């Protein structure tokens, strides 16, 4: 047995269906174990296809704590390689994104093709002909894509991505409708760090309960329509467990399917945009774009590291047991009107990022969770909100009200399954 394998009895002491032990935020040994048992045994999101549209485009990312390169080769195939030279372990790329024809290690100059194969070894004579280059490609992960979302896994025998996403696929498709008739593309990102465990952020993506309180200052600063639309505790939303740790929190039921209700009145806040768009587009196109510009009315939490949140991607990157990086990736309409993409940028800047009107308040309370979790380590973190009225639907999914902790229960159940395996 792997020494990191915690016996299930020990795991029962850590995670129950309606609660989790405080040490899940604070125990360095658990962190080390989950970086392998969770992140190296599941599908992990690494990129959106629009980040690497052309052959040679690459970005760097991480799977758990392992640095990886996501790259599109000459034939258009996406590869995910561990960013580690096969000679003596130096990274072969330290640029966050770019375009290249090969990766050359800066230490002794070993060079790798985009598909990871080892092409060149300087002063090869020194190996007297017994270095078989075919044996030393960059270590590659298995890669699969769903609707533009690129995932990778170290596991060759894991279920296909499409099965892993399962009940979440329908929600991904709905999320991508915010292109308003255009393909979705990324348009920049905010990166910020908070001194707390990654699961605190994971929980938050389906936590409607905190919104009216933590985001009071955002709601005050927002226009009255925006404030009304974010009155999510009172709009008949719900949270649903989608299986495999994924969940969706529907905050604004009227914004689930952006291709419906196209004849609804255009909100006051988008009237200027609609007028500008109307100069070059027919009414139906204007309505589609305007309806899509603010994003969807739900947060989709894909275990373990991606959130498709309203109008952006939220990417989780654990750094240490008490240190986490969060990326909020702004989305736009590829080939869409510049005015609409600008509107999306301004909406993103308003809430997100280290200087936004929302994210810093989130980061502050997560920091407080990590600090508070140093006390009462034997106590439980409660995840039972909305459990008593949770219903099991025909498709087997569990659903409860919008502020229920159903999504967190789903995530911790998946965490436990992976930690047990």
């Amino acid at each position: 047995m792997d020494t990191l394998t915690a016996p299930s009895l020990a795991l029962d002491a850590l995670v129950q269906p309606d609660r989790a032990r405080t040490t899940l935020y604070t125990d360095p040994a658990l962190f080390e174990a989950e970086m392998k048992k969770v992140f190296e045994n599941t599908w992990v999101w690494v990129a959106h296809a629009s980040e690497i549209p052309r052959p040679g485009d690459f970005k760097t990312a991480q799977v758990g704590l392992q640095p990886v390169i996501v790259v599109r080769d000459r034939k258009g195939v996406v590869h995910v390689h561990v960013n580690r030279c096969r000679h003596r372990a130096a990274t072969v790329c330290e640029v966050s994104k770019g375009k290249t024809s090969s990766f050359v290690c800066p230490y002794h100059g070993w060079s790798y093709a985009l598909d990871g194969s080892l092409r060149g070894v300087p002063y090869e004579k020194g190996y007297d002909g017994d270095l078989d280059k075919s044996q030393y490609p960059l270590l590659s992960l298995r890669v699969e894509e769903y609707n533009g979302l690129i995932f990778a896994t170290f596991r060759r025998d894991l279920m296909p991505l499409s099965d892993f996403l399962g009940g979440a696929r329908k929600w991904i498709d709905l999320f991508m409708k915010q292109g308003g008739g255009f393909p979705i593309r990324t348009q920049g990102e905010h990166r910020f760090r908070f001194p707390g465990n990654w699961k605190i952020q994971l929980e938050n993506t389906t936590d409607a309960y905190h919104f009216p309180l933590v985001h009071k200052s955002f709601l005050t600063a927002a226009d009255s329509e925006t404030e009304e639309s974010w009155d999510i505790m009172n709009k008949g939303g719900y949270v649903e467990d989608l299986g495999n740790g994924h969940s969706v929190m529907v905050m604004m039921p009227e914004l689930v399917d952006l291709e419906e209700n196209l004849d609804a009145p255009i909100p006051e806040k988008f009237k200027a945009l609609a007028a500008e768009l109307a100069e070059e587009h027919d009414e139906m196109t204007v309505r589609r774009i305007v309806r899509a510009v603010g994003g969807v009315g739900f947060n989709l939490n894909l275990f373990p590291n991606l959130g498709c949140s309203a109008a952006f991607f939220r990417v989780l990157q654990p750094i240490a047991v008490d240190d986490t990086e969060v990326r909020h990736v702004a989305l736009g309409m590829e080939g869409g009107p510049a005015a609409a993409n600008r509107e999306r940028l301004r909406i993103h800047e308003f809430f997100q990022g280290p200087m936004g009107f929302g994210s810093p308040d989130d980061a502050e309370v997560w920091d407080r969770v990590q600090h508070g979790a140093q006390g009462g380590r034997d106590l439980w973190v409660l995840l039972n909100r909305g459990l008593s009225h949770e219903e099991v639907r025909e498709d087997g999914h569990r659903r409860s009200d919008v502020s229920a902790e159903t999504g967190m229960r789903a995530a911790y159940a998946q965490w436990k399954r992976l930690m047990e395996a």
Partner: protein
Amino acid sequence: MDTNMPAIAIDLDEAMRFVWLEADLLDHACYAEWLALWTPGGRYVVPIEPGAEDFENTLNYAYDDHAMRVKRAERLTSGQSVSASPVARTVRLLSRFRLLSAGVEGCELRCAQLLTEYRRGRERMYTADLTFRLVRGADGLRIDRKVIRLINATDALRGIGYIL
């Protein structure tokens, strides 16, 4: 422009004094006075990418017009924001001033800013290049654009719950 005004180009001394005043107002939380330093169309910009120039069509950390500046100031004083209660204390030093261009009606000033923040037991430093576009109005200089280029802007930052 006012015909009584002497046709003398803005010099380094005048520009320096003005941005020092701005720095002092921010460190001492005099937001009403700070808001009055701006032209009506002035922009406060904190870009992400080092080479960014087309701020309007690019994602920034902040891209504030007057209305957004007012909201940002209100957020720091309303007590509603948990990350701004209390607001971080800051001390900023501006130096290495250079006039990139100067005329009678306006100038462009570049300088360095070292800012130390303290809040809840943590002290952090943010270092930035500032570029001001200043214009001369009837009652003195006004900020038409302030661009704050943090040297670590592309890195993962901690929450910045104050005005840079």
